[in-house]
């Protein structure tokens, strides 16, 4: 690039971009050989080398059909097909709908200008050719084209990356097959929803079958959201796998998880979490909390009570300790865990819903239809009251134990 020293910078243009756009392919269309040569010479002096020529409108359309240029410098009055018609035809085709077309013409009445732009031209240069003007306009339209292309390429690749990351993250969630197997074995029904507020989320939940008639269930929420929080879900998920041996003891499980991730967790980031072990033969629930929103137990006849899930969130204090608590479920009871975004929904008085509001909502909706569709009703109401986009990641999981669907 820079070895060709006679290519001087074009006044008023960014050098880095100039280097990129000089490789652009430009089609020059004019029925007069002298004009083609003049325009070509002018562009060559500006450093453009990838030029090709057409002698009339039809010739131009044929060439463009074979190979689409980056920009066209187009004469208006030509035999066979006029410049106006070339513009119109190019705009009709998707591949050339946005191709920069620079129209050049001798007569320059306001009416003609209107006609030129109406037919789809991008811009206008006067004839006889004013060399610096032609060069400036060619550069400007090529710059626009390349900038837009770079930007949309970048966006497309970011979108693809995020879509892939999103798929990877969704693979951390329980698989439908596994859940179905647990449902069949343990005589319960899951109702689970997960939605990230951004492409990637900081929420996660999971469930595993253990020996001795027990299942373990966790719901966690990593502070913040977006890419940073999402990366931390992978960290936490991988770390949890190391403590398989402690799964039957929720407090020990949380303590070990905390000790393992705390040194690596950035200041100000942490995990609120609930982990419970349910004996599906006896209904005994042993659980431990790390500051997750209170899980709710909804009894068979619709009474709602809360479980104490308070505790130091995982990742803050190395020496944090956790306690086991127990609750007794009865057949037909439901356990409902959720992320705090549900509490942030607007309530009746313009304030947000809050713990009490959610409790009322759940007890109102629990048996308005089938119990096994309770979460569905809660979320329908949540989305209906949400004024805009989802402000944070949403997870809502219910276990309906011994419920007849």
């Amino acid at each position, binding site marked *: 690039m820079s070895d060709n020293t006679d290519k001087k910078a074009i006044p008023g243009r960014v050098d880095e971009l100039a280097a990129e756009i000089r490789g652009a392919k430009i089609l020059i269309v004019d029925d007069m050989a002298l004009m083609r040569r003049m325009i070509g010479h002018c562009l060559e002096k500006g450093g453009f080398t990838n030029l090709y020529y057409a002698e009339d409108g039809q010739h131009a359309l044929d060439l463009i059909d074979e190979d689409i240029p980056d920009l066209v410098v187009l004469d208006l009055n030509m035999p066979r097909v006029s410049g106006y018609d070339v513009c119109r035809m190019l705009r009709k085709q998707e591949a050339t709908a946005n191709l920069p077309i620079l129209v050049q013409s001798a007569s320059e009445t306001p009416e003609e200008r209107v006609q030129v732009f109406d037919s789809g031209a991008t811009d206008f240069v006067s004839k006889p050719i004013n060399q610096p003007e032609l060069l400036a306009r060619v550069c400007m339209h090529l710059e626009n084209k390349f900038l837009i292309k770079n930007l949309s390429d970048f966006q497309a690749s970011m979108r693809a990356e995020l879509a892939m990351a999103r798929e990877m993250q969704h693979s951390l969630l329980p698989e439908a097959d596994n859940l179905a197997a647990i449902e069949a074995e343990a005589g319960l029904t899951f109702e689970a929803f997960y939605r990230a507020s951004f492409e990637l989320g900081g929420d996660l939940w999971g469930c595993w079958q253990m020996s001795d008639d027990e299942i373990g269930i966790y719901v966690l929420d990593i502070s*913040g959201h977006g890419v940073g929080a999402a990366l931390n879900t992978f960290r936490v998920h991988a770390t949890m796998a190391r403590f398989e041996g402690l799964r039957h003891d929720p407090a020990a499980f949380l303590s070990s998880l905390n000790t393992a991730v705390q040194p690596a967790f950035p200041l*100000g980031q942490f995990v*609120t979490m609930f982990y419970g072990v349910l004996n599906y033969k006896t209904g005994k629930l042993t659980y431990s909390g790390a*500051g997750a*929103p209170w899980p709710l137990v909804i009894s068979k006849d619709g009474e709602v009570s809360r479980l104490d899930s308070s505790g*130091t969130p995982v990742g803050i204090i190395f020496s944090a300790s956790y306690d086991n608590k127990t609750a007794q479920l009865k057949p037909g009871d439901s356990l409902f865990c959720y992320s705090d975004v549900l509490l942030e929904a607007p309530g009746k008085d313009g*304030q947000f819903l809050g713990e009490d509001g959610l409790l009322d909502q759940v007890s109102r909706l629990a048996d308005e239809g089938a119990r096994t569709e309770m979460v569905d009703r809660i979320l329908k109401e949540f989305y209906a009251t949400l004024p805009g986009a989802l*402000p944070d990641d949403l997870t809502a999981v219910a276990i309906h134990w011994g419920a007849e669907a």
Partner: protein
Amino acid sequence: MEYRINEADGNELNVVFTGDITFSENVAFRQLLKDLGERSVKKCVFDLTAVDMVDSAGLGMFLIAKEQADTSGWNLSVTGAQGHVASMLKLTKLSDLLQS
């Protein structure tokens, strides 16, 4: 979220917050910490009486403030939390951490 810094006494500051303290206040909160870092403080109290809501990112900001207080040798505490803010602090046991 908005905040006002009141000088209570030579080395003691009172920061009065109003509005919600959420993820989107990250920049404003960091500016506050920078302001605090530039003063010679011995003791600082975050007054949350007029705060309606705090989310997990907001709690994270308190932790960052606490860390800055510990390393720069000043004392940070929060006061006045009520409703949702109080229950969030209690739920996460940060109320214990942010006392003293």
